[in-house]
């Protein structure tokens, strides 16, 4: 029996598909010919639900989209509603939002580092990544009371203030992360097995990446300098100074390096935001029943996975007429086939890990 093109099913219950993603692979003796992602196993009909809930009731639902970066989803939705309703968030509120969003980016990248390393076999890095992430979740637990579905950013600002104890705790957590990062980098960066599994794998050039609509660290790994926090600043990111790490080849190794560098940048941003934390109000006056005049708006942020955007159309009542979410992982997943073609079967796992996709956000 010639071991010619066989169709292999990877998922939806597969150890390394980060949720419920099914990959229909056409494989010729371990060389991947065709990859067809099948999604929808985690489809909860969010957009239909949103059309029947008030604006304040939608915010906790956005936690469940990218469940590794709940606060970023909250921030994106809150910014869109504020732009639609013309609510002005006070400066302190914006700074606390930056602190929370960047802490969430740290947690998401650390979880990603763990998953990706574990997919390629370095099982201990999973625990080191998660250990670093636990401290950040403890900060969220102390700030608002939840670790994963945080619901810590509301329409109009943030629900609670950062008191002195919490600020010093955040600084303590931030000072602990570089040490763990050094361990992870020592284990992976120069390791010959790691480099063999990642250098030159899953290549995508800058032009192809832009054409596929790739965004976020995966795009920046191909050398495209597009970070929404710089190009279209929101929530006073323009007052923060940080640089945007870029890759060159656009392979799995570059995506790894870019995200590790972004962790350091996020630490820098949070420290700056805490230093320059202005006094004053942290929540705008928002009516309890928020009715928004008919209108339509499109707002995007730089979520850990890529450009996350919301389109909201209001109809004057307290419930939106239509809410559409632009999910970065949904668009990034389209380029998976392009990256996997020609590589080996075990690379598909590595490439999928380097894309950092989350199924909650893809399936909505």
């Amino acid at each position: 029996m010639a071991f010619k093109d066989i169709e292999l099913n990877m998922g939806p219950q597969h150890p390394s598909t980060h949720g419920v993603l099914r990959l229909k692979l056409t494989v010729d003796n371990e060389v991947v010919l065709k990859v067809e992602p099948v999604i929808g196993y985690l489809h909860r009909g969010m957009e239909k639900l949103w059309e029947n809930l008030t604006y304040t009731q939608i915010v906790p639902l956005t936690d469940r989209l990218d469940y590794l970066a709940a606060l970023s989803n909250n921030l994106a939705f809150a910014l869109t509603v504020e732009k639609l309703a013309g609510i002005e968030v006070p400066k302190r509120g914006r700074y606390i939002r930056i602190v929370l969003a960047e802490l969430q980016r740290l947690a998401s990248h650390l979880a990603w580092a763990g998953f990706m390393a574990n997919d390629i076999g370095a099982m201990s890095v999973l625990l080191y990544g998660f250990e670093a992430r636990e401290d950040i979740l403890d900060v969220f637990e102390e700030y608002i009371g939840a670790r994963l579905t945080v619901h810590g950013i509301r329409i109009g600002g943030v629900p609670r203030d950062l008191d002195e104890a919490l600020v010093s705790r955040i600084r303590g957590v931030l000072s602990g992360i570089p040490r763990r990062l050094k361990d992870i980098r020592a284990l992976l960066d120069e390791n010959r097995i790691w480099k063999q599994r990642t250098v030159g794998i899953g290549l995508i050039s800058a032009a192809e990446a832009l054409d596929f609509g790739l965004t976020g660290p995966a795009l920046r790994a191909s050398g495209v300098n597009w970070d929404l926090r710089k190009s279209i600043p929101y929530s006073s990111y323009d007052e923060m100074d940080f640089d945007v790490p870029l890759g060159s080849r656009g392979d799995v190794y570059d995506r790894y390096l870019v995200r590790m560098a972004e962790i350091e940048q996020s630490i820098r941003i949070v420290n700056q935001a805490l230093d320059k934390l202005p006094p004053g109000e942290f929540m705008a006056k928002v009516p309890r029943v928020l009715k928004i005049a008919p209108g339509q708006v499109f707002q995007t942020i730089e979520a850990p996975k890529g450009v996350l955007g919301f389109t909201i159309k209001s109809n004057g009542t307290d419930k939106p007429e239509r809410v559409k979410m632009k999910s970065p992982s949904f668009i990034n997943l389209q380029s998976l086939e392009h990256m996997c073609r020609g590589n080996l079967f075990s690379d598909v796992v590595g490439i999928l890990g380097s894309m950092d996709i989350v199924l909650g956000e893809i399936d909505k």
Partner: protein
Amino acid sequence: MSKLKALARKVFLLDILQGLAVTLRLYFSKKSTVPYPEKVKLPAERFRGIARLYRDEKGEPLCIACKLCQHVCGTKCFDIEGERDAASKRMKPVKFDWKLERCSFCSLCVEVCPTRAIRFSREFRMAAVDKGSLLFHLPEMYLNGEDLQNFLCAGCRE
């Protein structure tokens, strides 16, 4: 020079040894996991555990059955009936059903309650064997989250 260094690294397996050195050091590092049932990590003070109804100092229920929580809840967990208490002319809940299985712990009800009657306790153990026990009626709502405190304090575990 770097080419020679790279060759030396490759031949003498330096990156392998460096990796092993890191794991050896971490082998002796402080462990971050806690043996659960014996030692319980008390959640933070604002932790959103199981919801609980509170009474004021005199033991009167704080809840005035205004059903604000019922309206604000996105997943419709509450089912409240209230009536006016003849003696104290104050509204008090007669029926207060709360479905834990539907609750997403978004804390909108806690923030909207005018008399701070409903708040989250720090009890995080909410597993149940059957669906029935996930539906909390009025008397139980006052006891939720009671036993975590004495569970912890009983053995001075924390």
